């Protein structure tokens, strides 16, 4: 990079801050709507079941047939195992509102992130505030894009809840006015290494939610099979444990390749910056631990006795390591990666 740095646009930076706040408020409303969707799900389920029963009775009378078809035909499922939208999807008004609000939040935050980048004349991921604000934007964007194809609204409470927490954490915990990058970060590897790391992390966030729901659904199914009452009827909005596991695996495979690339790009950058490609700096240690845990997860899926709940736990542990690497290591550990701007 050249010595003649671009001028910081302070006013645009302040607009960016304002839009971050607006996005946080919109996300918080979306979170409430998603939670509302889950809360009133049991009523909706009852209505749908009653309607199904009634229509089936009518059909039975009309055909004069004997025998009982299973209640809740395929067209009346709230979710299906391929997580595509079904005939009843549109009946979830609260969820529709929540998705619209999420898109509004994504647009507002998208403007804020881009404005921040333009104001600083560089990529907007150079300190903890920017890691969090840009990271949460990517999580929300990836989630919204997946929503176009797949009905993952059951994860909305978790994902948008997390996005809200991240964005509030950025604006309240680490408010940082727009500034130039410190020399250590002035490298095009910042663009490559950090963006892929954040993208991989946002994919891991989504799989984390799926694997947690997989475990909950698994426990619920076991309880139902044992003849116990359904304590979590809202989990009817969530697909079965097996499809959750399979979908999480597909995303984890993509995210793992990205993480591998992140570590490699980081090594190349480290070589240019510090003269060694690997030196067991705390950040490097934790990136390695994360890589190994997810490698273990991929292998577990191909090992007898390790599929299902066990591999889900590995994915969850891997994500907890990511969270640890991003929060505790960034803030409390002293290392070469201390760019949190604290």
């Amino acid at each position, binding site marked *: 990079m050249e*010595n003649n740095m671009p001028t910081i646009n302070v006013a645009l930076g302040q607009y960016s801050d304002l839009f971050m706040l607006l996005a946080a408020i919109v996300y918080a409303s979306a979170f409430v709507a998603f939670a509302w969707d889950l809360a009133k799900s049991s009523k909706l389920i009852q209505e749908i079941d009653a309607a199904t029963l009634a229509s089936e009775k009518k059909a039975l009378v009309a055909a004069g047939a004997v025998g009982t078809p299973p209640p809740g035909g395929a067209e009346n499922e709230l979710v299906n195992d391929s997580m595509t939208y079904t005939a009843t999807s549109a009946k979830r008004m609260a969820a529709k509102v929540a998705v619209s609000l999420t898109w509004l939040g994504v647009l507002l935050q998208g403007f804020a992130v881009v404005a921040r980048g333009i104001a600083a004349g560089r990529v907007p991921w150079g300190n903890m505030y920017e890691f969090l604000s840009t990271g949460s934007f990517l999580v929300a964007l990836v989630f919204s894009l997946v929503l176009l194809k797949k009905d993952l609204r059951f994860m909305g409470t978790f994902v948008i809840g997390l996005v809200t927490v991240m964005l509030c954490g950025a604006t309240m915990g680490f408010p940082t006015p727009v500034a130039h990058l*410190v020399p*250590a970060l002035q490298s095009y590897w910042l663009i490559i290494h950090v963006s892929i790391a954040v993208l991989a992390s946002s994919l891991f966030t989504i799989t984390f939610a799926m694997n947690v729901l997989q475990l909950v659904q698994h426990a619920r199914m076991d309880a139902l099979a044992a003849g116990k009452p359904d304590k979590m009827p809202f989990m009817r909005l969530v697909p079965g444990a097996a499809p959750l596991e399979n979908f999480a695996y597909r995303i984890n495979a993509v995210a793992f390749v990205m993480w591998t690339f992140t570590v490699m790009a980081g090594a190349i950058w480290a070589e240019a910056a510090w003269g060694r490609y690997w030196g067991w700096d705390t950040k490097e240690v934790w990136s390695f631990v994360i890589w190994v845990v997810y490698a273990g997860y991929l292998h577990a899926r*191909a090992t007898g006795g390790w599929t299902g709940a066990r591999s889900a736990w590995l994915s969850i542990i891997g994500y907890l390591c990511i969270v640890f690497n991003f929060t505790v290591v960034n803030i409390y550990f002293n290392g070469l990666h201390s760019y949190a701007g604290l």
Partner: protein
Amino acid sequence: MAKNDMKKDVAVPALGFVGMLRWAWTQLTSMKTALFLLLLLAVAAVPGSLFPQRSVNPEQVTIYLTNKPTAGEWLDRFQLFDVYSSVWFSAIYMLLFVSLIGCILPRVKKHAKALRTPPPRTPSRLNRLPQNGTIEIQSAAESGLSDAEIARQAAALLKKRGYRSEARTEGPTPSVGAERGYIREIGNLLFHISLVGLLASVGIGGAFGYNGQRVLVEGETFVNSLVSYDSFKPGTFFKEDSLDPYSVKLDKFNITFDRESTTHFGQPIDFTAEVETRRSPDAEPQKETIRVNHPLRIDGADMYLVGNGYAPVVTVRDGAGNVAFSGPVVSVPQDGMYTSLMVIKAPDAKPDQLGFQGFLLPTAMTDETGFAISGDPNAINPQLQLNSYYGNLGLDDGNPQNVYVLETDALKELNNRNLDAGGIVLSAGQTYKLPDGKGSISFDGLKRFIGVDIAYDPSKRPVAIFAALSLLGLGISLFTARRRAWVKVKTSVDGSGREERIIEYGLLARGEDHGLESEAKELRKLLEQQWPAVERAGV
């Protein structure tokens, strides 16, 4: 990696020695063991981030051992300050890689054989496969194509779709066996072999390399030989004659500070070292720069900018008026304003050796409480604030001393703010006469210095190549699908004596394959394009 194909009911006592070895080998190379070792490796890496590591930050280890001697001793006993070269960490990854090699070898053999083997024979019942279906097509009489001809055409169709296919036209029901995605296993093997290659490169390459540090003041020249280094760490197989005889002279070091921002005022935004290099003693000098993220690339040993600060030029005279010390003194920055700690040792001073310690303030000013501070990182009003000492510096007994620390226990104070003489305050160009005719000290000027790392590591290139190959292999193994497909052509005669011909197909995934369903749909579409399905009335 290899699947766990050991037998469950092995009776250990009956095995004998060779059997035991084989049993141990099977255990080690089993998938479960590999998974266990992999997870153990993750756990074992964690302590290296919790305790200071000698390989990363030796000073922190010394501080830890001083502050917590008892705990430190125990931690040291279990190599927790050297985690990544410890016996236990090495044992885990060595076992893991032995297990890995034990997995790779048989799989390479197996896959080499699979590549030379025709697709597997057609199962008798295709409707047992996860994806299957039937299409009724025109009979041989209607279309003029025999069952065998249909099978041959289906084989060609599958081949065009990337399958390796074989038409089996003997027997009453001609069929096609096909398989695709052999590259998935090749990618998988490439990934794991590359990991072994990467580890081997790190181990072997690192042993021939070296790295060292040097502080270079403006005007000084570094010549790449052992005596020029402030600290030096050779690899196991390092030889002194492998040092390239190049030289680097620091002409000037520039820092750009942020002067626009109100919130980040004075934050450095650029460091540039202007240097004059000679690749060999008789080579032409070249003007080059070293910057953060832009090292000086010299074939054999690159130079990296890792630190900087001020080096005040000081002259110390002793009581007799002779120069006891003269030259730049490297000071250690303590904060963003470059308030820098400095120590001057003048062992040649007579009759008493002289020592000084205190601060350099690049832009001296006083804060509200009347305390002297530095108000800017640039040297606008440089000032030295020093205490002085005389006596025995302890340098003559041959014990190595830290140049940045003055051992004051055996010394007598001359200047200190608590003494009548007060502390020494010197602006650039000024000279101060020490009390009791002990001599004088003058602040002649200010230079900057840089700290550089010089690193030679021949493993870089092979590691980069193996890393790229492993990424390629990983992508191939995760995003290509290995599938088997079969097509059968069956003709039967129904009750009315009419010939009825059916194409039956089935697909099987080998390994993770979420796309099998859409592949089955695609295959059906292709088959129906070639031989349109016939609708029989009343069926």
